[in-house]
């Protein structure tokens, strides 16, 4: 298929051997690429029961047929592996030049297995792959690592570099993989998997991408869609304010995580850490490679101890989880927390959630400064939050417990702390309170990677759309549709943002797909593929021992009524959750235990899997 190379680069770090693995043409037709291809490959290639941090685990970096094609939002890649945080399926998405460069060296992706004897990094160009000594980089933060690698290559612009920070080296279960300094494949502890292989970084320098079927048509589609973006009030607002605008909406709608999800609104956030506050600290706008939508903001701390600290961000999730969730209304502190997490290689979503959990443990007297080498961690105390990031990333003192994530930390701490440990399957909640929009609860519960905001964005329907938020009614089909739409985008593999705010439909992406590959695909074809992919991922998790019992929500979400905001008095409740799950399984063609039925397997050509 045009737009693809039909091969994967396999690197065995134990033996030092590499080889090309052909990707059968039917995989692209049946799974597209990205998430879909990852589902097929991980299911086929990873034996059951492998320890996620053992040499046997596989670490995939995958692109899609649209990657590097100039399609707007197409400089994305996905890291697919078995997660050390959940011990199940993991797909973590990121923008980065490495996505485009992978295509330019002639591969649709790479898979890394084994474990190197010494810290190493991979350098790949048109001539092949080198496994290089990285002992001089081990221990360095992601920014310094990337600077040194770029300097060594003598050029700084188009090179693709992905790396881990100290958190990945220390096998911290909320460790991420950094690219282009400020871009993260954040979720599920993918950085720890990379660290477990003693792989510090990957550097890729290519020349030519995959063949494009109709470049003229591709350019015309981009022109047309750019014109649409220019007149779209949604796109214009997003290009001005970026994701921080979401904080105003979640605050208004009563789904803003506040004080470790105890509350759902926080008036003190307004004009300080929302779109208005962040815009005051704006230095410039940025866009990803291959995207005409500049929705990223570069900001600089304007005052105080961290004055002058600059970051590409902070994005909404970081503002929600390091801001309202920790009762921190200082943007400079949040900017510093963002930079610290990026440097040390820690996911800001999981870190903010984890620190909120620890702060609540302090509030209830479950933890005290004695447990933290004298450090008191309190809501509203930005400096203690920053200290907690470092403890976690380096596994220092109590940081060794925190490095296990909320689920692991709650198991260690005990004393019913798991009731307010806001996670599903071991992955921490992102910045949306499900009691104010029950669809988010279902989405978190059934997500195969744990609490996830990327498979679906239910506030679009329950806050900004006409779906009543505090009911189970209609939520299963709503979530299935949102999941399937994003599954297509994450398999092609393009950013799901432009599609939402230009807006672009799956028909628009079918046009891009045809221009790049020359193949005609309908919206229905795309959705059929999405159904197959989601079912295969379900089968992967079932094989790893997951059951319906894992599709659940924390005690707080189920049983504690919200004390404030538009959703005051609401909690999801067991009956609502069970009903939503029953209906979700049914509309997926899975039985009451969440196991795909024989007819569903047949429908998706998965009967032999």
């Amino acid at each position, binding site marked *: 298929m045009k737009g693809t190379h039909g091969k994967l680069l396999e690197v065995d770090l134990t033996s030092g051997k590499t080889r090309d693995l052909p990707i059968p043409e039917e995989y692209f037709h049946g799974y597209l690429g990205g998430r879909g291809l990852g589902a097929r490959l991980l299911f086929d290639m990873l034996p059951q029961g492998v320890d996620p941090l053992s040499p046997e685990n596989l670490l995939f970096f995958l692109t899609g047929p649209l990657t590097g094609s100039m399609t707007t939002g197409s400089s994305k890649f996905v890291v697919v592996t078995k997660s050390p945080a959940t011990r199940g399926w993991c797909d*973590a*998405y*990121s923008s980065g030049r490495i996505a485009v460069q992978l295509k330019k060296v002639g591969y649709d992706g790479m898979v890394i297995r084994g474990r190197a004897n010494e810290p190493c990094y991979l350098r790949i160009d048109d001539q092949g792959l080198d496994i290089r000594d990285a002992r001089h980089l081990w221990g360095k933060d992601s920014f310094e690592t990337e600077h040194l690698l770029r300097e060594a290559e003598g050029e700084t612009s188009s090179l693709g570099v992905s790396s881990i920070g100290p958190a990945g080296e220390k096998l911290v279960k909320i460790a991420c993989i950094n690219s282009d300094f400020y871009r*993260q*494949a*954040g*979720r599920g502890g993918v950085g720890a998997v990379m660290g477990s292989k003693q792989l510090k970084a990957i550097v890729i320098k290519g020349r030519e991408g995959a063949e494009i079927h109709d470049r003229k048509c591709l350019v015309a589609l981009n022109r047309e869609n750019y014109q649409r973006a220019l007149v*779209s*009030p*949604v796109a*214009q*607002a*997003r290009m*001005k*304010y970026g*994701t921080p*605008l*979401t904080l*105003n*909406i979640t605050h*208004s*709608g*009563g789904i803003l995580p506040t004080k470790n999800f105890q509350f759902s609104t926080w008036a003190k956030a*307004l*004009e300080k850490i*929302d*779109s*208005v506050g962040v*815009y005051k600290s704006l230095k410039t706008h940025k866009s990803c490679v291959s995207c005409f939508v500049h929705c990223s903001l570069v900001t600089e701390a304007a005052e105080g101890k961290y004055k002058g600290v600059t970051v590409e961000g902070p*994005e*909404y*999730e*970081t503002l*929600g989880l390091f801001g309202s969730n920790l009762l921190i209304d200082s943007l400079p502190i949040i900017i510093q927390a963002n930079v610290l997490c990026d440097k040390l290689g820690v996911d800001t*979503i999981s870190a903010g959630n984890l620190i909120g959990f620890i702060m609540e443990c302090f509030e209830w007297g479950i933890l005290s400064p004695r447990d933290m080498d004298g450090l008191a961690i309190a809501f509203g105390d930005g400096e203690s939050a920053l200290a907690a990031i470092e403890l976690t990333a380096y596994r220092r003192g109590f940081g060794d417990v925190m490095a296990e994530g909320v689920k692991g930390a709650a198991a260690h701490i005990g004393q019913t702390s798991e009731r307010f440990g806001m996670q599903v399957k071991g992955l921490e909640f*992102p*910045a949306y309170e499900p009691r104010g929009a029950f669809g988010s609860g279902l989405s978190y519960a059934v997500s195969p990677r744990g609490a996830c*905001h*990327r498979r679906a*964005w239910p*506030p*679009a329907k*329950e*806050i*900004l*759309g*006409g*779906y*009543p*938020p505090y009911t189970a009614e209609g939520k299963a089909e709503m979530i299935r549709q949102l999941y399937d739409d994003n599954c297509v985008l994450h398999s092609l593999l393009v950013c*799901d*943002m432009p599609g*939402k*705010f230009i*807006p672009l439909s799956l028909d628009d992406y079918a046009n891009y797909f045809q221009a790049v590959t020359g193949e005609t695909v309908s919206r229905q074809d795309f959705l059929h593929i999405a159904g197959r992919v989601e079912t295969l991922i379900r089968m992967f998790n079932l094989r790893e021992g997951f059951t319906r019992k894992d599709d659940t929500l924390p005690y707080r979400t189920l049983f504690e009524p919200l004390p404030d*905001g*538009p*959703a005051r008095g609401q909690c999801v409740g067991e009956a609502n959750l069970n009903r939503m799950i029953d209906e979700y399984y049914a509309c997926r063609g899975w039985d009451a235990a969440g196991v795909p039925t024989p007819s569903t397997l047949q429908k998706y050509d998965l009967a032999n899997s």
Partner: protein
Amino acid sequence: MKLIVNTFGTQVRLKQEVTLESASCTLQQVLEALRKEHGAALSRFLTDSGAPVEGVAILINGRNMLSLDRYGTMIHDGDELTLTVQVAGGSE
């Protein structure tokens, strides 16, 4: 009655106090009055007839009017109206 109006678009404006003559009325009547009295400021959100432009949502005390009684929803003194573009999400 006094209303609090927020607008989230290419300009974000928070907690604007708006005074209307009637003590309580429907959303439809409120939107018509707002369009009449604050037309220029709200032109990106409301059409000439007072309906929201495409891509705009209306929240009443945090609830989308589509999940309440739509344009017939009663608005009372002190209520908070939010007119917002339908932006989405936060990245990874």
